[in-house]
């Protein structure tokens, strides 16, 4: 947890040595952050709209149930299928689902350990694609989503296998 404060201290010391205007740099940074956030806001608004609908309608839970038999064959516990569906879509949604899994099965159980490793080796793909491409000239994401999903899914199978051995 020390890494960020230490990095900030080093940055400030470098600024001191090299005589870089720190206050001006922070104002520039904040200004750039504002334009960036305004640029990406429409994209996250639309994504969160769809994700809220998916969760409230029970679609994500339903998809989870539908795919869980197939997951079971691959060694992924059925309790984790909704997490796997939600993970690429929503960071906060999958994190609160992870907490629920910890509460229900105990944090040191096999299921919870698998869930942790799956969360640790994946990210919110949909958000990354939407935000990263928001300022790009060509908006075609092409194979970015399918490849990320496939890698994440293979990673989940490996995670569950690893948790059994380690």
């Amino acid at each position: 947890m020390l890494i960020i404060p230490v990095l900030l201290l080093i940055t400030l010391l470098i600024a001191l040595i090299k005589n870089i205007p720190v206050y001006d740099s922070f104002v520039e940074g904040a200004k750039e952050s504002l334009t960036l956030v305004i640029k990406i806001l429409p994209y996250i608004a639309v994504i969160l709209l769809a994700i809220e609908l998916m969760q409230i309608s029970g679609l994500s839970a339903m998809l989870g149930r539908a795919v869980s038999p197939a997951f079971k064959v691959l060694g992924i516990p059925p309790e984790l299928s909704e997490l796997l569906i939600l993970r690429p879509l929503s960071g906060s949604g999958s994190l609160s689902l992870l907490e629920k899994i910890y509460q229900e099965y105990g944090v040191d159980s096999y299921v919870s350990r698998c869930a942790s490793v799956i969360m640790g080796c994946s990210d919110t793909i949909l958000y990354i694609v939407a935000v990263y491409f928001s300022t790009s000239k060509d908006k075609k994401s092409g194979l970015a989503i399918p490849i990320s999903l496939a890698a994440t899914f293979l990673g989940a199978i490996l995670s569950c296998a690893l948790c059994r051995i380690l």
Partner: protein
Amino acid sequence: MNYVFLAMMLASIFLLTRQSPEKVMSSMLDGVTSSVYLAIKLFAIYAVWLSVLKIFEKANLDKSLAKKLKKPIGFLFKGESDKAYEYLSLNLSANILGMGGAATPTGIKSIEEMTRHKNKVMLIVINSTSIQLIPATIVALRASFGSVTDIIVPSLIATLFTSIVGVIMVKVFVK
């Protein structure tokens, strides 16, 4: 993206209309409202990291980092400008150190500077497979639940695996 989105919307609204149609509008509005909160949080995170980035740039640290990482980055991303390589090296370092907040703004800036589609897909895949040494958020959450078992080793193996598989798939399938 358009097809994924259309399928998600169609299926959820259809389901919700059959269960409780009054929730269709309200959950859409809730989603958009939460995006505003998220945007405020992101403004704060990016403001800090973009400021740090500004100092890095003024101190030419980004250039020396790019020089050090020239080999791996040159292998992953072919034929981009020096500016793009600088942002890419910052993005990869932020990812590996688990600083998601710093990864996003540098990632966006990298894509702005990039010209090749294949490289853009590569960047998305690397960020999506979350290459990081320690999954800090998850470890902290587990600690708050009083966990006694370790997940750092399997996470490290799994994240290396997903990133390598992702990189190979981009190299093979994307033109």
